[in-house]
């Protein structure tokens, strides 16, 4: 993307305006009488039209022009806002969006939308407005070129406030002189006596005798901005002997008048010197811009560089630690402080309020509500919560899915709701809130809640669980995230577009987030996504297993304990630790990674948790905390499950980052396996 291309700026701007337009229309749907909303909607349309025409989006300009004309009737109170109008207006918005994104593609439907729009705002009183005019001024186009040059006398007096309002008579006279050879005489007859003279007013008139071919149009052009409130006469001079040449005195006089009157008056603006000084100092200027558009790639690049810097700084810290040079240590510490500040600032730049994402869903809920015949109140909170931009983009699809599910499967129809003693209107809430180094985003509905029996039936039908498996309700609920548990049996146009909850879960896992589910039969369900604030740099715990070093995301670490000696002796393959009374399965990373060689004598267990449970990871040594710059694994390694990425350590070696969600999952399945073995035995 080339940011210096105004067309691209226009596209971006149009996208924002369309979002604004959509939000305005949806607000209007709730609050049809709100005049401010109508005005801001109108303004968004107006800007799209104006800019669209400027940058060659003629189809956009023409379509929006008609749209705007229709809305103008609403603005003037000649037509009422109603659901039908909002519906068509939203269609129109979508149409504009298409026109802007694919200006070259033939796009139908515009005429139909406009026809509907006209019908709604009362068609008969709706004149089909002329297309946007492309010409600056057509008054000049009436010149008749065939006549021979003749002499003309032009006399004019400017409006009294012309000087104050920025008209410079000198420039006008220069323009007139360019039409044809001219003799210019000032007319001083209207200059009042000194005691009544307003020094800022224009009193002097001008007489210009020129030789030109029908100068009327050209003269109109010169006085384009003044024509309607000035005195101007133009008459052909009788074919007389060329009028007496202007005497040198008068010419000089005119000149001095010109130079003395207009510019002197113009320059007489009292605070001019002060303004000059202010500009020099620049001191009391307001900040030039409150926000700045930057291409996203540049931010990614900046983040990468900061990542490299953090790595280099880690190396320096490591070398400084081994050195006795106090100066080196000082520099290393200073650099560490600076680079962590730089890291935080850079990550801050990438943070975007999640409200931009939330506002998209209002339209979704509005449309779903209409299609399903379920009245819905959609409440969003925490729009100001900020998340990494990449994260927000990747959250869009999972959230669409969750909201569709909530509306389609969660909320009951109005009759059922009334029968259950609820209001006919269902509620879907979308909220975001900070919790520690994470952001929790929840989608909740006040519908019927998950039905454990139906989930069980479906899971058995799809072969996810054995028919006689004993599962708690909570475990049953979590089956909706299992791959293969699709809502295929009840595919509607809305849900079940082939994206199952397992895809949602995978996306969230990929973002190093977790999903929690709570549901109460009859009262509704809440799905909570917990996501780290950023994807690029995390705090990690560095551990050693054999010769390899690995990083565990610190946010997932609960505690570290020593592996009790001789635990295997009586565990007999059942790897459980007793952590203050609760059993936690543990995995020997040495075995998981298939490492050879003897384990250290005193092994440590790092207890990590993800939304679903806990697992202990047995390691040889805990090295300590470090700043982990996450590097994605290459596509070749995309099949690897236990690692979510890699990082470069201070000494230049690579450490793999453990995928804790996956490890916790294997720990849990290990328990289940063990339990079934236990039962079978």
């Amino acid at each position, binding site marked *: 993307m080339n940011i210096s291309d105004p067309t691209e700026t226009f596209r971006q701007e149009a996208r924002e305006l369309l979002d604004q337009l959509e939000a305005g229309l949806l607000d209007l749907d709730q609050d049809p009488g709100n005049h401010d909303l109508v005005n801001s909607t109108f303004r968004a349309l107006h800007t799209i039209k104006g800019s669209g025409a400027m*940058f060659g989006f003629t189809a956009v300009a023409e379509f929006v022009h008609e749209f705007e004309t229709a809305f103008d009737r609403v603005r003037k109170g000649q037509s009422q806002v109603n659901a039908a109008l909002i519906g068509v207006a939203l269609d129109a918005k979508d149409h504009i969006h298409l026109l802007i994104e694919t200006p070259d593609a033939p796009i139908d439907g515009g005429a139909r939308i406009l026809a509907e729009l006209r019908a709604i705002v009362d068609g008969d009183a709706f004149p089909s407005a002329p297309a*946007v005019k492309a010409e*600056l001024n057509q008054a000049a186009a009436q010149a008749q070129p065939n006549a021979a040059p003749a002499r003309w006398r032009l006399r004019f007096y400017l409006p009294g406030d012309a000087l104050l*309002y920025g008209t*410079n008579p000198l420039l006008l006279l220069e*323009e007139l002189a360019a039409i044809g050879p001219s003799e210019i005489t000032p007319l001083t007859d209207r200059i009042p006596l000194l005691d009544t003279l307003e020094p800022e007013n224009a009193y002097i008139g001008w007489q210009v005798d020129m030789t030109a071919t029908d100068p009327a149009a050209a003269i109109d052009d010169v006085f384009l901005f003044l024509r309607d409130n000035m005195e101007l006469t133009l008459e052909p001079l009788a074919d007389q002997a060329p009028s007496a040449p202007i005497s040198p005195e008068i010419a000089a006089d005119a000149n001095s008048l010109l130079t003395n009157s207009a510019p002197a008056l113009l320059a007489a*603006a009292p*605070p001019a010197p002060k303004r000059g000084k202010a500009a020099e100092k620049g001191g009391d200027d307001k900040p030039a811009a409150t926000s700045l558009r930057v291409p996203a790639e540049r931010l990614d690049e900046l983040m990468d560089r900061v990542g490299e810097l953090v790595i280099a700084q880690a190396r320096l810290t490591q070398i400084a630690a081994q050195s006795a040079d106090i100066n080196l240590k000082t520099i290393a510490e200073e650099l560490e402080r600076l680079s962590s500040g730089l890291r935080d600032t850079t990550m801050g730049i990438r943070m975007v309020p999640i409200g931009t994402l939330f506002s998209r869903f209002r339209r979704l809920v509005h449309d779903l509500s209409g299609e399903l015949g379920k009245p819905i109140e959609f409440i969003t909170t925490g729009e100001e919560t900020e998340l990494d931009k990449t994260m927000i983009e990747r959250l869009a699809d999972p959230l669409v899915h969750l909201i569709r599910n909530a509306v389609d499967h969660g909320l009951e129809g109005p009759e059922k709701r009334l029968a259950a003693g609820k209001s006919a209107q269902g509620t879907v809430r979308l909220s975001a809130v900070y919790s520690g180094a994470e952001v929790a985003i929840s989608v909740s509905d006040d519908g019927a809640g998950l039905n454990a029996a139906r989930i069980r039936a479906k899971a058995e039908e799809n072969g996810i669980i054995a028919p006689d498996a004993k599962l708690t309700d909570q475990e049953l609920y979590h089956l909706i995230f299992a791959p293969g548990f699709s809502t295929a049996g009840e595919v509607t146009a809305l849900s079940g577009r082939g994206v199952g909850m397992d895809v949602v879960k995978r996306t969230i896992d990929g973002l190093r987030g977790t999903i929690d589910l709570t549901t109460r039969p009859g009262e509704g369900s809440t799905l909570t996504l917990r996501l780290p604030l950023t994807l690029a740099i995390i705090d990690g715990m560095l551990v050693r297993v054999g010769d390899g070093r690995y990083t565990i995301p610190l946010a997932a670490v609960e505690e570290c304990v020593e592996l009790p000696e001789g635990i295997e002796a009586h565990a007999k393959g059942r790897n459980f630790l007793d952590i203050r009374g609760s059993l936690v399965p543990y995995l020997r990373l040495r075995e998981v990674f298939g490492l050879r060689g003897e384990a250290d004598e005193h092994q440590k267990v790092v207890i990590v948790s993800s939304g679903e449970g806990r697992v202990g990871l047995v390691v040889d040594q805990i090295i300590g905390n470090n700043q982990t710059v996450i590097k994605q694994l290459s596509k070749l390694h995309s099949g690897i499950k236990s690692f979510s990425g890699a990082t470069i350590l201070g000494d230049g070696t690579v450490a793999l980052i453990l995928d804790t969600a996956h490890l916790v999952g294997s720990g849990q399945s290990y328990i289940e396996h063990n339990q079934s073995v236990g039962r079978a035995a």
Partner: protein
Amino acid sequence: MTKTILTIDDSASIRQMVAMTLTAAGLDVIEAVNGLDGYDKATTNTVHAVITDLNMPVLNGIEFIRKYRQHPSSKGIPIILLTTESDEDLKRQAKEAGATGWIVKPFKQDQLLAVIKKVTGA
């Protein structure tokens, strides 16, 4: 002396277009995003002409002109309106408020330059 033109528009693309055109012609350009922002910038910088949109949030073009013309530093400074349609009524209001001239959108770069040259002599 390089002349400084203030462009006031809530549309970033129009501001960018105006700025590119005028900068290419050797003028300095200051940008403002609405009438109030424009007023602040017009009264704290030395500007030689102002180009303003009409339809803007916070303070629209006509309100801007009224407010700016109250300020002594506006004396003799040309103000050019950008109007989307040749709306005579709005134009009249703007002229009464103290506008110097206007340009009808959509305009071409040379039209913009021609008008700026007309009112500033630049």
